[in-house]
């Protein structure tokens, strides 16, 4: 009963797909979750008559059954795709700088290009050439890495070798002039948390290509349904899950992982552990000192903690059409300076520069009760400035920034605030509370150019221990879900080898 092949610590996206993949392969697996519900970020909560989606805005990598993306294929192998009603979005996003720019970009290459050209006719050639570069570049990435070309060379993949580690800003500057155009074409940077100047072109191209080709998706009843479906798949395949129970310690023996001590004090034996917790907690807190690997900590020390977020979960007492909201994904910017927006992420009390307003009902009429609207209003924020708020002033600070965000929205959508029936605030400290991550990070480490996995993935340096989730594979739904699958496959392969 207390012997397992693998223990998975944490039922976030990465932990869930790891556990479900292991169970599917017949491995005896225990999944631990300190919270009462699975999902980590991929969860929802109820307030009044609303059920609020916590984290999912646009799921990438899905595609449709006849043109499946990598994520669909993986989820399909776990038997959860048909458990969920998928909602495809027609547009990528709308970007608004009130009074100055308002543009909506469709989720297809031609529509995307045409919409930009229509708004910025003087830059027609530049726009077409830039988008062409994104496509040619990413086609090379697919050919070289997704198709596992055995002979990768700069001659065969010239664009990849030229631009893979280039920053997005420099390339944009070569092709485009108008700062409004640059904002409109690269506003997805906030899905990574690194502004174009610090964002590798590979990351940027991957996002644009994936969202356009595989379309952005949501799901009915929100991301909690995916988390619950993954647990269901795991249980049906014989997995054991323990909620309200975290891991206190990773046991070792003979120079490798030997098991886990649970919060309850119980000991579980297992030669493999996949941790969906932060690597800081996994290796710095759960592993004994003598197994803390110097190289690992030096390597990890070069990565910095990524952003958290300040989020308002809003329930409106009217249909979204009454307020003239027509798009699911709306980036609302008060200026075009993305470097400034990045610096503002490090402040607690600035004037909001770039926010994301997601109105779920536009794509999914069932996102809230009839006659109401569910909205998430998000601004990326580093957790650091919140750590120094004296606890007894926390609730005074908690609402201040939200008030500023709502003022900006009110300017764009008059009457918005008066229609708010429910609003819940999540500060970086709220995210920290529910995710248990350093500084409340939602994306793991920063994903700057120097953080590229071209320079090596984090290896904890003790046999049997693996990572899954944002810290291991980058933030966001697709990367975290995929990371769990990869970790599980690596572990399963090892076990097969051992068993001959």
């Amino acid at each position, binding site marked *: 009963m207390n012997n397992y092949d693998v223990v998975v610590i944490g039922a976030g996206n990465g932990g869930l797909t790891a556990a479900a993949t292991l169970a599917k392969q017949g491995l005896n697996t225990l999944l631990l979750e300190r919270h009462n519900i699975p999902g980590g970020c991929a969860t929802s909560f109820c307030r009044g008559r609303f059920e609020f989606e916590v984290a999912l805005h646009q799921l990438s990598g899905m595609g449709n059954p006849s043109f499946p993306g990598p994520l669909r294929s993986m989820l399909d192998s776990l038997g959860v795709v048909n458990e969920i009603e998928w909602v495809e979005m027609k547009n990528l996003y709308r970007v608004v700088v009130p009074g100055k720019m308002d543009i909506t970009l469709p989720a297809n290459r031609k529509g995307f290009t045409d919409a930009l050209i229509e708004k910025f006719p003087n830059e027609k050639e530049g726009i077409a050439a830039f988008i062409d570069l994104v496509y040619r570049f990413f086609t090379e990435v697919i050919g070289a890495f997704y198709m596992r070309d055995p002979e*990768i060379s700069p001659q065969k993949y010239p664009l990849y070798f030229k631009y893979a580690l280039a920053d997005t800003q420099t390339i944009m500057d070569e092709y485009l002039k108008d700062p409004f155009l640059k904002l409109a074409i690269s506003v997805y940077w906030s899905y990574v948390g690194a502004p174009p100047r610090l964002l590798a072109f590979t990351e940027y191209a991957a996002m644009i290509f994936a969202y356009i080709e595989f379309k952005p998706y949501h799901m009915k009843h929100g991301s909690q349904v995916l988390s619950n479906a993954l647990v269901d798949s795991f249980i049906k395949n014989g997995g054991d899950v323990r909620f309200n129970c975290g891991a206190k310690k990773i046991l070792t023996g003979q120079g490798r992982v030997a098991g886990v001590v649970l919060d309850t004090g119980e000991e579980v034996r297992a030669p493999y552990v996949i941790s969906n917790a932060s690597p800081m907690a996994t290796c710095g807190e759960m592993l004994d000192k003598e197994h803390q690997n110097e190289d690992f900590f030096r390597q990890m020390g070069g990565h910095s903690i990524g952003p958290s977020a300040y989020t308002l979960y809003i329930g409106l007492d009217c249909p979204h059409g009454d307020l003239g909201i027509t798009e699911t994904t709306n980036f609302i910017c008060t200026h075009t300076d993305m470097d400034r927006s990045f610096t503002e992420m490090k402040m607690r009390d600035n004037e909001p520069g770039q926010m994301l307003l997601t109105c779920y009902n536009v794509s999914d009429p069932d996102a809230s009760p009839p006659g109401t609207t569910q909205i998430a209003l998000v601004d990326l924020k580093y957790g650091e400035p919140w750590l120094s708020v004296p606890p007894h002033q926390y609730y005074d600070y908690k609402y201040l920034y939200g008030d500023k965000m709502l003022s900006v929205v009110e300017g764009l959508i008059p009457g918005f605030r008066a229609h708010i029936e429910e609003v819940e605030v999540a500060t970086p400290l709220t995210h920290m509370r529910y995710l248990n991550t350093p500084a409340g990070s939602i994306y793991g480490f920063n994903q700057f150019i120097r953080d590229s996995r071209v320079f090596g993935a984090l290896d904890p340096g003790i046999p049997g221990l693996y990572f899954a989730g944002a810290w291991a594979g980058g933030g966001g739904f697709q990367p975290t879900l995929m990371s769990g699958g990869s970790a599980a496959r690596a572990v399963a392969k090892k076990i097969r080898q051992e068993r001959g």
Partner: protein
Amino acid sequence: MTTKDIHTQIEGYHRVLDDVKSAQRYGTDYRIMKGEVARVLDLLHPRRLDLRVSEVIIETPSTKTLRMVSETGYLPPFEAGQYINLFVETAGVRTSRPYSISSAPGMTAYYDITVRRQQGGFVSEYLLETVKPGDRFESSGPAGQFRYNPLIHGRELVFIAGGSGITPFMSMIRETTDRGLDRSIHLLYGNRLEGDIIFHRELKERAERHKNFIYTPVISEPSKKCSELTGLISGDLMKKVLGRVEGKNFFLCGPGALYDYCMPELEKLGVPLHRVRREMFGSPVDITSDPGWPGEVKKGTRFTVKVKGKGDLSALAEESLLVSLERGGYAVPALCRSGECSLCRVKLLSGKVYQPRGAHVRASDLKYGYIHSCAAYPLSDCEVLL
């Protein structure tokens, strides 16, 4: 050629590699930050509080305030209106009850909880009869959604309280008047008898001293010499004492009967429902009288509840699964005990349960058979997964 070697041929590889090395040289030793997340969270949202009763204050013949100080010397901040879930062990059963904190958030040295005797309430009975200064309790950290939200609740508030439903309002009134906050409160406080009013003198004094606080007690079974308003908190009464209702936000806290009576009255007055917030108030006194309860299952019926891999127990239809599990000696995490917070979520593997309306169960939890055990009553033999 390995993938790693290929990467070295990417333009700028060595320049970025220098960045990597430099970042590592000037990097962070995350080992030093061991325990940092827990330390920060413990100051704001500790999972458990170690409390000691420092004083027992008699409020009315049926009500006492237990003043709780922290054994560690530190109490986390809270938002006025929030509660703590107090763990008690009485008659061999470990259970818990949520109590609103009645002291102001600014009172950082103690939390007051104010307890009124509930009919047949074995926990309130225990707290009122047995507890004395020096007794120790464990509780949850502060929690709950019944609170003033400055983003939407505006400056004009109407509080409607019934009986011990005054407790969260007491914290809000104390905070608003003590801190001189820019908002006005009109409290309508219903009680059966004059002698039942909790905090009567303090409320009167605060209303005299602060222009932005108006206090209107309402007595339903007045004595002959009663000088307060009498009757129920009806729409007419509200209209008379409040005047205009537009632009005001209403907060209700009290027993179920208060909601059943006041909600239609507020509707008649033309108060939009989304301007009315209600505190949940524990489990219903008699679930079998709930409008949706299936008549064929009679009070007193017993069912067998199997706890997967652990054993089984006998459960009464009219008791929530959470209570039955606690009686059976199973530790189930619980917080609000009113169907809202989902901490006591369990998976129903087989059998049927009654879930009263108003339990905040996620749509996907319904789909996969998860229930909130505090708001689920057995209607047949069941099996659950803890």
